[in-house]
């Protein structure tokens, strides 16, 4: 039997070579005790190209024009995947590492806190030097499915999005030169980048930072809520209140599902709905700036409602403290919160549905059935910079 032993020795040689290669290219990573996971996160299959491919039950279904919009048994929109396990894991370390901010004080996870639905529990987020942002931090769950990112839809992919907060003066307050210098000073990072990007000659570059962050963010999958079990076929997965809420949600009186369309619970469009800004804050023109279109003044991307119960307060500038208040906004009358003299072209589905108090309660009950954190990533106990506190 020649085949067996020769295979075995092949494997041994590979392992030895692999170990040697790791030691050679990432002495720091090895020495510092950080190494990258070679397995995909839950919900991903590792293919033969060392890429993680998303698997979920919605892949059993089709959708009209492959747009990922519809009812219960409908496919999701196209998603980002295909990152390596090492890129995802490096992204995870970077995500929690305050060394990414200019003053090494703020990590991505400060505003996108896993314990708060990857948001921060604040109406408007606070930057590295204490500046109050004009907008609320959106959840990162299921961002793999989004065609555009940021409230005003100005980023077309996760990589482009990541550049925003990193280099914004009122967010992480860094700049490319300083970011690279700071990461290079952390013993482990050059080796970890080399491990995650083995074909890059110089692995520690901005593009690889944003790729790793995109890789991690696209691994945040939440598709196993009670609603999902109902959608796939368990008629008892929603309690009677939640079921009643679902029927209000998709009714053409409340019309919630017309924009928060299943299965992602967003249709990914920009909508002008006219929520009030916080006291004293000027009107945020939103997508008008992105598209240079006055008709989109005050327009924002329709957010997903998955895990919405975890991410109070609500709306782009966090004006509503509770989900109940945010829901009630829609029944108080078209344009009721638009100040006099303000011209907004309100979305046609902003109507006067006259929902009852009970219907509002049931809608809140239903949205509570969209929560699922079963694929919560592991939060690192320490990050390569040692700055986690």
């Amino acid at each position, binding site marked *: 039997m020649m085949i067996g032993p020769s295979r075995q020795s092949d494997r041994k040689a590979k392992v030895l070579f692999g170990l040697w290669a790791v030691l050679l290219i990432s002495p720091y990573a090895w020495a510092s005790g950080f190494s990258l996971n070679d397995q995909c996160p839950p919900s991903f299959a590792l293919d033969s190209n060392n890429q993680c491919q998303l*698997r979920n039950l919605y892949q*059993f279904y089709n959708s*009209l024009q492959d747009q990922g*919009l519809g009812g219960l048994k409908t496919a999701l929109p196209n998603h980002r995947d295909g990152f390596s396990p090492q890129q995802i894991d490096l992204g995870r370390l970077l995500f929690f590492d305050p060394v990414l901010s200019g003053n090494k004080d703020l990590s991505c996870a400060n505003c996108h806190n896993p314990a708060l639905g990857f948001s921060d529990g604040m109406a408007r987020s606070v930057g590295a030097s204490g500046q109050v942002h004009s907008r609320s931090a959106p959840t990162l769950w299921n961002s793999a499915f989004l065609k555009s990112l940021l409230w005003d839809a100005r980023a077309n992919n996760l990589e482009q999005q990541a550049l925003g907060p990193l280099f914004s003066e009122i967010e992480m307050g860094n700049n490319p030169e300083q970011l690279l210098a700071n990461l290079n000073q952390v013993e482990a990072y050059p080796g970890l980048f080399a491990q995650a990007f083995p074909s890059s000659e110089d692995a520690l570059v901005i593009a690889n930072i944003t790729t790793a962050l995109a890789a991690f963010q696209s691994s945040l999958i939440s598709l*196993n809520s009670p609603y999902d079990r109902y959608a*796939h076929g*368990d*008629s008892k997965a929603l309690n009677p209140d939640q079921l009643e809420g679902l029927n209000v949600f998709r009714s053409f009186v409340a019309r919630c599902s017309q924009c928060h369309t299943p299965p992602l619970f967003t249709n990914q469009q920009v909508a002008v709905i006219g929520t009030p800004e916080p006291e004293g804050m000027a009107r945020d023109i939103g997508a008008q700036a992105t598209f240079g279109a006055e*008709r989109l003044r005050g327009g924002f991307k329709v957010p997903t409602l998955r895990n919405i119960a975890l991410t109070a307060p609500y709306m782009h500038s966090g004006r509503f403290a509770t989900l109940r208040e945010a829901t009630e906004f829609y029944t108080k009358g078209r344009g009721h919160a638009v100040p006099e003299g303000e011209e907004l072209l309100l979305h*046609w589905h902003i109507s006067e549905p006259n929902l009852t108090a009970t219907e509002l309660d049931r809608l809140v009950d239903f949205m509570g059935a969209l929560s699922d954190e079963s694929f919560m990533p592991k939060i690192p106990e320490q990050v390569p910079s040692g700055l986690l506190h």
Partner: protein
Amino acid sequence: MNNRIKIVLVIITFAGGWILGSNNNTAPVITSSMGGASYAGGYQADQQQAEGAVALRTEQGQVHVVNDGDSIQAAVEAAQPGDTIQVMPGTYSETVYIDKDDIHLLGVIQGGARATMDGLSKLNDAILYSGNNIVIENFRITKYKGNGIMGQAGNNFEIRNNVIVDTGIYGIFPQLGTNGLVEHNVVSGIEDAAIYIGMSDNIHVAYNEVFDSVAGIEIENSRHAVVENNNAHNNTGGILAFVTPGLPIKTTYDVIIRNNFVLDNNTPNFGAPGSIVSGIPAGTGILVMAADDVIIEGNIISGNKTAGIIVNDHSFATTITMDVESDPNSDRTMILDNVMLNNGYDTIAEVKAVALTELHTGLVDIVHVGPSEGSCIINRHRYRTVGIGDYADCDFTNTDSIDNYLVAGGAERRVIHPSERGEIAYLGVCTGCHSYTGRLIGPSVEVIQAMYAGNPEGLVAYINAPVKVRDNFPPMPAQNYLDAETQMAVAEYMLALEK
């Protein structure tokens, strides 16, 4: 439209009108629509054209009879795919939702008395469905606040012979579905569209009577639709083919509007402020807005005071949003023979202004505003027209080659190989709690494999109704929402897993 463009347009169309006007003395060329070339574009199915949208059942399931005073929803919950629900004459005040496949929900008509769903002006929608292969027939629906019948992503549906009176926003509204038939319904008194096909494909709307509504029949952000043999009268607008910007599905194309009566649609607009249809001028027969490849053939269009046919682009509508992803123009409008009488007798200022640029006064059968790339018409001399100077002569005269755009055999279903099915379910669900080696939340796959080696049936039985086995582990939620095929696939997949 800004003023400078308007002025340029006036000059260009004036010049065009003058040149055309100088040729007016020759006898018109009459194109016969009897015989001749048939339309060769449109939806190309490999299969033969379909008879209906829902396949005939080879075997009947159970029949559930609902009597006056019973709950229709209770019968829906008791029904299995393949079953029929017969609702006896009587009054039912409830919202019925069908979240399963292959249910036929049939009202029983006895001596003219129908099963009546009455929303009492306080219930939201009468019938909602999300399942595939749904048939809804013979109901009378009235006084709901939302929709009469609404589909959300169900494919292969038939909605027929319902009478929907004075019911909220839309009478019949299938959305995000493929392959549907809406026929023989009588719908009136609707605040938006009596029949609204929204973001759907392969639709046939035939033999319906729609009246006293803001819009009669609306085909919006949808493709491959035939609207034929309907009577749309006394609405604000009769039949519409639209692209509404800001919706996630961006196109409308390949729509045939033929052999309909489109009569006296002069009802004052009572659409909700801000709604798209609230901008439709009363007196609109057929309206094409930003939709492509629309064929208008064989209709009797008469007595619509603004115009018989209006073709325009998004710039004409000032109340709608901006959407960089939606093409604002109506391209390739094709107008074949129609009978058009007494349209545009009291038209709106916007149409008058465009007419004036061509020195046209009086009645208006057809008006086109905006670019009209690839549009054509036959026998243009018959009509009172404005803005169609650049329409070519169509090189076909009829759509006889197309019976319908329904999908023979039904909408395509995703075919999943059993091995793929097991992997999807394992990774998509189980890996939240189970890893191959070592405890995550539940026991490792290795431990499970040791317990159920060679016994996937045992594992299926367990995941259907889990019982607590280990003291220091949380209870496992039942996975009974997965169908039997998926349960077996995932059990076999887990037992075969090697890492």
